[in-house]
């Protein structure tokens, strides 16, 4: 029930803020600050309450109510470790957003905060809803307020940017709706139960081609949100034109909904199909990483540069997700959070600079450090974070994704992706060079960060450093959900016996994926036993292991042999 209350709280606060704007402009700010703080408090409390022990059971909290029975549509909100993390992030950023727009927004304050909070409500809905219809509902719902945020309070090109954002996401969203419906009917016709319930749809069975097509619908929607090349082109405009709070939410949360969708829906619903898609997806991920970095390096508009950094970072998520590796997946979860913090902070800094010198053009900046050392220091921290400097959260995320995906089937691509370490340095240092270092074009007479801004920045800094030195606090929550996904994706259940011919027939990816398991078993030396045991216990598939080791097209038989020797010895 508390989940419902959270959403009600947000919407209610929004309406209240709107109404309050009748009296004066201060009240709405205060109200929404209080509201978001309460939200943050609740999530923090949930976080402290959470203990991994109960992670084994299905969900932490869940709430279900009938909505449109005629279609088997439920109002189903469910929270597990992953969504809890996302909620923490959302609530944290929501407080930040209210604070950063404290002085920046002066026109139509009430309506602004109404949209802000409605947006947050929609996002929260996405992270919680486990009924596909409800998910799509909130997915579309969060577009409208964001559209308003961009095209009312944005910069010069706001109208264009807003429309572009709306059209891109809407188009992809409708495709996803088609897929959802397709899934709904296929499952319905097979089982006779017409429902949008995620957990029931999980075990829908269908022909590989159909599955692939349906999955494409989801993946397109999610990759558009994730702004994967070549579907990214809405992002730079939207991020650049949005007001600071808007940019923060876009970079911090909207993009994450895409990643979340991939982990929560695209993979578990279509395991085999995902394996078919994996090579392309990983390729696109790597392309986005490098292409985004390249474009970021070329930009002269501060916010646009940061926007392309986002593209690059989101590429990591695609790479990590589709290498179907637990470590990479943890890295992805981490990336979702740290990218939100670091890029959000960069946008805040960009906004602060814009407020003070009224330009986003890098060529007109320079030598700011002397005037605003605090801002400079903060800029330094987050620039370093965004280039993945160890000691800051981003490093953990990136290194885990890279090492993890290297364990998977895409070693070469991973190595290519590593080039980002160099290109990232290039664009990141460019920011420092152009903004804070170098000659002053004119003698700036501008105030440094004030108390409010310092509170914001320091909280962000402490988070990013905390995550850099003690990421376990995240993995503790993400462990269970991630492992669920990995199990679902990596070991598709087959009845015994049909194994071999199934493999021989078409899906080589399952072979590759079995081999991967075998690698785990072989390479993990000491861990071999553990893994074999748990796999066998869960799926009673010792036979499979044998067959796999003797697969005709197994790349290295001798390793398989060695593995057999070792395992037989230890038994």
């Amino acid at each position, binding site marked *: 029930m508390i989940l419902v209350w959270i959403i009600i709280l947000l919407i209610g606060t929004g309406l209240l803020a709107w109404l309050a704007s009748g009296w004066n402009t201060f009240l709405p700010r205060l109200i929404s600050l209080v509201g978001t703080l309460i939200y943050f408090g609740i999530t923090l409390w949930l976080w402290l309450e959470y203990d991994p022990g109960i992670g084994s059971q299905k969900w932490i909290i869940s709430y279900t109510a009938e909505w*449109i029975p005629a279609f088997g549509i439920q109002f189903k909100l469910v929270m597990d470790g992953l969504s809890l993390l996302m909620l923490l992030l959302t609530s944290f950023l929501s407080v930040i957003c209210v604070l950063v727009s404290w002085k920046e927004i002066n026109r139509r304050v009430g309506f602004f905060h109404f949209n802000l909070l409605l947006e947050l409500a929609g996002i929260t809905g996405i992270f919680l809803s486990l009924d596909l219809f409800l998910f799509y*509902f909130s997915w*579309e*719902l969060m*577009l409208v307020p964001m559209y308003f945020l961009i095209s009312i309070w944005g910069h010069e090109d706001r*109208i264009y940017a807003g429309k572009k954002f709306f059209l891109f996401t809407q188009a992809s969203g409708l*495709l996803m709706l088609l897929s959802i419906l397709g899934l709904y*009917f296929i499952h319905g016709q097979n089982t006779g139960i017409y429902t949008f319930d995620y957990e029931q749809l999980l075990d829908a069975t269908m022909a590989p081609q159909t599955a692939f097509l349906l999955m494409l619908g989801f993946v397109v929607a999610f990759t558009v949100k994730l702004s994967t090349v070549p579907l990214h082109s809405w992002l730079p405009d939207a991020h650049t034109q949005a007001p600071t709070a808007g940019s923060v939410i876009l970079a911090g949360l909207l993009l994450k909904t895409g990643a979340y969708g991939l982990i929560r829906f695209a993979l578990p619903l279509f395991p085999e199909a995902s394996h078919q898609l994996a090579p392309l997806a990983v390729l696109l991920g790597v392309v986005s990483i490098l292409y985004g970095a390249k474009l970021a390096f070329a930009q002269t508009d501060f916010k646009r540069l940061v926007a392309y950094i986002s593209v690059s970072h989101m590429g990591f998520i695609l790479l990590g997700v589709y290498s179907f590796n637990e470590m990479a997946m943890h890295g992805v979860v981490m990336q979702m959070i740290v990218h939100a913090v670091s890029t959000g902070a960069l946008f805040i800094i960009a906004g602060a600079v814009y407020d003070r010198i009224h330009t986003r053009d890098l060529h007109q900046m320079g030598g700011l450090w002397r005037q605003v050392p605090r801002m400079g220091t903060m800029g330094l921290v987050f620039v370093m974070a965004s280039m993945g400097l160890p000691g800051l959260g981003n490093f953990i995320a990136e290194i885990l994704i890279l090492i993890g995906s290297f364990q998977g089937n895409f070693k070469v691509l991973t190595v290519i992706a590593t080039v980002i370490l160099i290109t990232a340095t290039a664009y990141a240092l460019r920011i420092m060079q152009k903004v804070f270092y170098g000659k002053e074009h004119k003698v700036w007479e501008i105030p440094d960060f004030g108390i409010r801004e310092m509170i914001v920045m320091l909280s962000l800094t402490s988070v990013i450093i905390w995550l850099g030195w003690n990421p376990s606090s995240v993995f503790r929550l993400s462990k269970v959900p991630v492992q669920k996904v990995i199990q679902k994706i990596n070991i598709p259940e087959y009845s015994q016996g049909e194994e071999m011919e199934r493999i021989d027939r078409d899906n080589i990816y399952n072979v590759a994926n079995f081999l991967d398991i075998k690698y785990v078993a072989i390479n993990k030396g000491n861990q071999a036993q553990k893994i074999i045991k748990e796999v066998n216990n869960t799926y009673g598939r010792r036979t499979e292991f044998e067959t796999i080791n003797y697969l005709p097209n197994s790349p290295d038989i001798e390793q398989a042999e060695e593995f057999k020797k070792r395992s037989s010895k230890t038994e």
Partner: protein
Amino acid sequence: MEATDIRILLPIIILAGGILFTLLLVAVKRNHLLTFICTSTTLAASLITLCCMTYEKSHSFGDLFLLDRFGLYYQGLILLSTLVVTIFSYISIRNFYPEKRKEEYYLVLMLGTLGAAMMVVSTHFISFFVSLEILTISLYTLISYYRERSKAIEAGLKYLILAAMSSAFLLFGMALIYSISGTMSFQGFAEISFPLTSMSSVIIVAGVGMMMVSIGFKLGLVPFHMWTPDIYEGASSPTSAFIATISKGAMLAVLLHFFIMADLYRFKSILLTFTIIAVLSMLIGNLLALRQNNIKRLLAYSSIAHFGYLLIAVIAGKEIGLPAATFYITVYIITMLGAFGLVTLISRSNEEAMDIEAYLGLFWRKPILATIFTVILLSLAGIPLTAGFMAKFFLLTAGVEESKWLLAFTLVVGSVIGLYYYLRVIVAMMKKDENTVPGASLSRISYYAGVLVLIILGVLVMELGTSPAWLIDVINGLP
């Protein structure tokens, strides 16, 4: 003709009586307000009687009429929307129509309503034709009612010529069918069976095709859509609303009746033509509206697209198609009434607020109206929290279940293009208000009455967008 028949026909009888009474009243004493009250009471009365009725079994009058829940629902819809139209007509006539003789308008309006109300329950070519013509001919008058305005006359003429032409097609089609089948009732048409290869079948199908010309014309489907923008622009907003909601809605009901009772799903070629028409309508309608600056024309074009969407449900078939179409048309009628009512309220004394200029900065001048309009536009675009989303979802469900993927994808493409122009209007409303021309010189009471109605409609849209369960249940209750 025994008592039950009378009871069942009561709404229509009341309506007819009301018309006669108003006729006499106008003859006796010309008074705008009085006529308005008389009209609205008549409509309200027949509506109430309608609601009081409960059809356990469907009740047919020979082959001519079949009064079942389906028909009842549509009649209620029509009466209700006519009531709203009447209110806005009063506002618009009172404010923008200095000329004498305002009263006949209501007569014709009710006549049209009568025609529509009969049309939706007609199951026979004759009854269909007659009621259709009652509706159409009263439409001629309504459209060109402001006869001093050249646009009105032009619109009237265009509509007259084209409508007459289309009725000619309709009649000829009917004649062909009749000549082969020897019966004019939908039911009979379904019963006759013949080898579908023979010449006769071709003639039958040709007849249906010619009827489709007329039906397509009334629904404003491509390629019979040409008239819509001009007529919408030429006629006064309430009249446009009348056309957009009642005449089209009634025609849709007949189409559904015809399709289902006469079981046209037998003829692949007809389904094919309908598919083509649907695709064309969705694409061309949206494309035409893309950069339209005249709100009424824009609504006209978007209506083309929307009826393109509706055809998906029609094609999808009885089980899911019928409820989907019904739900969609209901939502569409609500939104359209809201839209045109809004145009009426925004308008300034001398001319209606058609140009998008008139909407600049509406958000900050008239927040309530602007918000309602935004909701309506979003509903037309099919964004969640509004009824339009649920309706579109319903349609897609129908399309996907019958695996009409082509149509479904076209709908997606169409609604993405559509979103663009709806957003244009919203953006215009959000722009800083350059034009500081004072708002409509409407008399206070009527203005607030209008706003009230709009608020009700807006709330209804939101309500259906969030918890449509009850309406869906009602509709699934229809046969």
